């Protein structure tokens, strides 16, 4: 039997317990309230009495400031509305096509590196991010990434930028994280973003002169920003880069680590429920497996919000003073026994109804990559399946199993829930 791994969250509460980490977000002593129940977390996520105060604020303001994730109120509404075209069905299908082609190439490389004993081995931490990066670069509109070395360089930059943007959750020197993130951002601008911008600006100019039809313009973030400068002009011009960085970082470490968790959780389930192997090619079964895994394994252990006015939570009567912060422990809330029963912390594919809890956050900041990640329930015909569903499907079709000789290892430098290594066997390749 292949080894099982521990997919719990050891030590992740540290960030909320340590005043030093709180102070880096600008939280005065005693002004942070932890919320762990489903009802309170749900209420605050949806409430207009609270504003975003985590991502794009405090430590992460340097890199994420004024990006979609940092905004509240009218600014958030306008930005979200503007960018929603990038997540329409036709765009999602395009991204899924890019993903499949990229997966083909990644699996071909794994086969080419077959071990001397005839087994195909791979580290999913190396294999999956480059695959998903091809999707995010398509969404953003970055070019010339067929060159493997150029793609690898970008992957390294994204990790450093992500560590800077995620300094909020870092267990190492935040200032150093941010310094390295900013350095990487400069290289990203010069080598990737600026050429893409110039190319698309020329296309938009040609369109505006009547020389290029609308249908010839790319549908991507960079083009969209060039065509909607009226929205972005209220911020410093760095907002254009910041917005691209948000999407490229958000789609790198977290989704790929969640795919790895889902793979491990499903493998464990199938060992205990071998009768379900017959469903492993069914996208809806895979979606359910992902949904249950996402509920139990989230990218970060908490989100931060700040009260805009003195507030009494309707769900519990708890009072939050204007200006105070709340840490929404959405991971714990997504296991709340009041909602999920006494076995809410157990991975159970027989759970009814299945729910991903707060895996995609909630309220206006519900992740706009949700549909891109997991599609829709009971997707039929040409409906998008979701890139995580497709990844898990391809891995199980390739005979994926945890490598019994090399256990996965978590990143130890951040409380973000990400893997450092995730060695697997691909026994059917």
């Amino acid at each position, binding site marked *: 039997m292949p080894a099982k791994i521990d997919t719990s969250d050891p030590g992740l509460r540290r960030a909320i317990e340590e005043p030093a980490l709180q102070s880096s977000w600008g939280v005065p002593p005693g002004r942070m309230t932890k919320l762990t129940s489903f009802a309170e977390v749900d209420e605050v996520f*949806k409430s207009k009495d609270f504003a975003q105060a985590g991502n794009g604020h405090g430590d992460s303001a340097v890199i994420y400031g004024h990006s979609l994730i940092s905004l509240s109120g009218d600014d958030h509404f306008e930005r*979200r*509305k503007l960018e929603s075209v990038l997540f329409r069905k036709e765009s999602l299908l395009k991204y899924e096509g890019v993903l499949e082609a990229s997966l083909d190439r990644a699996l071909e490389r794994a086969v080419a590196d077959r071990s001397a004993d005839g087994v195909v081995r791979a580290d999913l931490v190396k294999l999956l991010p480059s695959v998903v990066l091809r999707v995010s670069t398509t969404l953003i509109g970055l070019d010339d990434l067929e060159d493997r070395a150029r793609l690898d360089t970008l992957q390294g930059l994204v990790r450093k930028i992500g560590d800077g943007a995620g300094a909020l959750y870092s267990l190492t020197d935040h200032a150093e994280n941010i310094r390295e993130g900013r350095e990487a951002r400069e290289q990203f601008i010069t080598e990737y973003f600026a050429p893409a911008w110039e190319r698309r600006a020329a296309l938009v100019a040609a369109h505006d002169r009547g020389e290029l039809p609308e249908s010839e313009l790319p549908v991507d973030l960079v083009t969209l920003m060039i065509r909607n400068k009226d929205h972005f002009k209220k911020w410093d011009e760095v907002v254009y880069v910041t917005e691209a960085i948000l999407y490229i970082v958000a789609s790198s470490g977290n989704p790929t680590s969640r795919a790895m968790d889902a793979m491990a959780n499903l493998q464990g389930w199938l060992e205990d429920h071998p009768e379900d192997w017959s469903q492993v090619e069914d996208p809806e079964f895979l979606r359910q497996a992902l949904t249950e895994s996402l509920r139990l394994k989230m990218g970060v252990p908490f989100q931060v919000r700040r009260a805009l006015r003195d507030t009494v939570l309707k769900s519990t009567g708890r009072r939050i003073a204007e200006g105070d912060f709340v840490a929404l422990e959405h991971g714990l809330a997504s296991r709340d026994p009041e909602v999920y029963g006494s076995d809410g912390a157990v991975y159970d594919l027989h759970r009814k109804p299945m729910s991903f809890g707060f895996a995609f956050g*909630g309220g206006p900041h*519900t992740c*706009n990559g*949700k*549909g891109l990640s997991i599609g829709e329930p009971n997707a039929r015909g040409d409906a998008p399946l979701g890139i995580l569903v497709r990844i898990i499907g391809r891995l199980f079709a390739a005979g994926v199993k945890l490598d019994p000789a090399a256990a996965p290892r978590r990143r130890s430098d951040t409380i973000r829930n990400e893997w450092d290594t995730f060695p697997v066997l691909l026994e059917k390749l």
Partner: protein
Amino acid sequence: MTDSPAQSVRVDAGLCQSTGYCARIAPTVFHVPEGGPAEVIDDHPAAELADALREAEDACPAAAIRVTAAAR
């Protein structure tokens, strides 16, 4: 409003995050009461609202809105 509706609209209350974005875009079709979820107050809106409805469907952070062509 016309007499021949061209589309039908529904909101999945289980998914709705009560942002009110739909009501800002198409106030004659959606209403979000205090605490939500969103309600459809005109479930067979007129054809000229098609663009606004698609915008509301796209902009909904929870992907809780479905607009479909209605049987004529």
